[in-house]
């Protein structure tokens, strides 16, 4: 009876299923995008190969939100600490018009190579001039760049000197001196990546830096990675919650309207069921089962929708990392969608259960 009723009203069924599917797709894509953004940033930061990360006080683990730069000479003092193998100062530059919330790393190639082990060049070579830029392979693919191309960044024309394998901090690298020049931050750096002679000395080196630079943000790479969650990013959790709330509201409202109109349309049928002795619980059960069925089909359609949207996004924006659907979030999205559908159907179901049988039977 439930399946027959759902199939008997195809337009209503399609609209309801679509609403739930959009709800589930929205939840999974928003979560996939935000966690993808964080996980991608975390992977690339870890890929630098440093053991300790040193930032001035008030800096964020999101590099694009970093605070004012500090003298690059701090790096010389860090290099003197026992068990420190190398220190790579980096000055961040943001170019929101072309890179979203990504950042350009201004690097000193020699120290960067000592900390990171150097880039893997897929084509081209290292900086030769101040207006050279290195791009990673994903960025090159997304922007159709090759060695020798001109890239407009920070209101300047840069020359692409090399394409490197992705996964080391940023997708764009320019010489440190150029970054300093363009931001009028002479002899300044935003962050110092510290490499120890052996990873076993990380705690000792971290403690020594804390003594040297009290009040600074000093973290082992492990700690730094653990901070890269949505909980530590201002307003990100609120944004996710707001988007989930919006998605659930869509599902709830459409199911509510769908069930409400269904009840009006089926008043006489409900009267017939009541004349056969159907209890309030039986009527309530029928409506809620119908809503659950619409919800379940919508959830499956939502999973398919999320996979398709992810595929389109990744295909259209190669530098955009959208995390694939996790079992945990798939379950959460399903529970939210099902709850939304059941709550949306509850009032119409209750209204149906409370219909007077004589009035319902007389309904035209």
């Amino acid at each position, binding site marked *: *009876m439930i399946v*027959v*009723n759902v199939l*008997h009203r195809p337009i209503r069924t399609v609209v309801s299923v679509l609403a739930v599917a959009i709800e589930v797709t929205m939840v999974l894509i928003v979560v996939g995008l935000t966690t993808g953004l964080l996980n991608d940033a975390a992977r690339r930061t870890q890929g630098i190969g440093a053991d300790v990360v040193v930032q001035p006080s008030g800096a964020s683990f999101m590099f694009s939100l970093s605070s004012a730069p500090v003298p690059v000479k701090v790096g010389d003092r860090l290099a003197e600490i026992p068990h420190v193998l190398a220190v790579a100062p980096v000055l961040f530059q943001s170019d929101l018009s072309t890179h979203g919330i990504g950042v350009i790393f201004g690097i000193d190639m020699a120290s960067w190579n000592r900390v990171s082990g150097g880039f893997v060049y897929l084509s081209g070579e290292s900086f030769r001039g101040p207006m050279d830029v290195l791009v990673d392979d994903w960025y090159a693919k997304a922007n159709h760049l090759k060695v020798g191309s001109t890239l407009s960044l920070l209101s300047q024309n840069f020359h692409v000197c090399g394409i490197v394998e992705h996964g080391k901090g940023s997708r764009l690298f320019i010489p440190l001196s150029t970054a300093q020049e363009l931001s009028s931050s002479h002899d300044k750096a935003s962050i110092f990546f510290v490499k120890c002679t052996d990873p076993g000395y990380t705690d000792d080196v971290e403690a020594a830096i804390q003594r040297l630079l009290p009040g600074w943000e000093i973290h082992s790479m492990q700690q730094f990675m653990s901070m890269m969650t949505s909980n530590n990013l201002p307003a990100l959790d609120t944004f996710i919650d707001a988007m989930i709330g919006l998605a659930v509201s869509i599902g709830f409202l459409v199911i509510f309207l769908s069930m409400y109109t269904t009840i009006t349309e089926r008043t*006489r*049928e409900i*009267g*017939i*069921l*009541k*004349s*056969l*002795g*159907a*209890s*309030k619980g*039986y009527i309530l059960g029928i409506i809620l089962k119908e809503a659950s069925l619409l919800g379940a089909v919508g959830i499956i359609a939502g999973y398919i929708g999320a996979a398709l949207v992810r595929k389109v996004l990744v295909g259209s924006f190669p530098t955009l990392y959208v995390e694939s659907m996790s079992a945990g979030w798939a379950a959460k999205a399903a529970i939210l969608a099902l709850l939304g559908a059941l709550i949306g159907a509850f009032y119409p179901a209750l209204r149906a259960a409370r219909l*007077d*049988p*004589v009035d319902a*039977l007389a309904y035209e």
Partner: protein
Amino acid sequence: MEPIIRTEDLKKLYRIGKLDVPALRGVNLIVEEGEFLAIVGPSGCGKSTLLHILGGLTGPTSGRVLVDGNDFRAMNDADRTRFRRHKIGFVFQRFNLLPTLTARDNIELAQSIQGNGFNPRRFAQVTEMLGIAAKLNHRPYALSGGEQQRVAIARAVICEPKILLADEPTGNLDTENSQLVLNMLRTLNRSFRQTILMITHNPEAAAVADRIIRMRDGRVVSA
């Protein structure tokens, strides 16, 4: 032996706007088990209201109703629903089949609501007797009026109710189908001692019953 239906000074008022409109003004009625009773009277005389009260679809305003030993005054809505599920079968003028279900599903629905499970023997017996065994996979729109009404009768009696309440069962049928339906009701009454109360405007239909009672202005005027 206690009658299966007994009403004493049964009254029902409907509130329409600020007015109380009396539908029943003190109905006293006794129906014995196995009796086939026809209720006749002009429109608005309270026939359907009486049937709705006896079937537990609505409660009386005052007076006493005893059906199969159950006093409706002591029963709430849920009790009356339970009572209806097990003891009452309804047949309506407009058939009232669920349009999305096949004839078979419409009949089985009554068993499903009753909760005693599907009884294939009873199902076969009833559908054979009503001559609808070949039409069970048809939806209502694919059945004639007479066939729809026979499916509705099957649905009403499939759970072996104590009382069958029929509200103008031939009102939407032509003469041939009316006669067929009346014969079915007569057969049910004779073969299974099914107690039947049938409202009708049609004197020929009423003549099929064992007894005819006439109503006017909310009262039984002759029994």
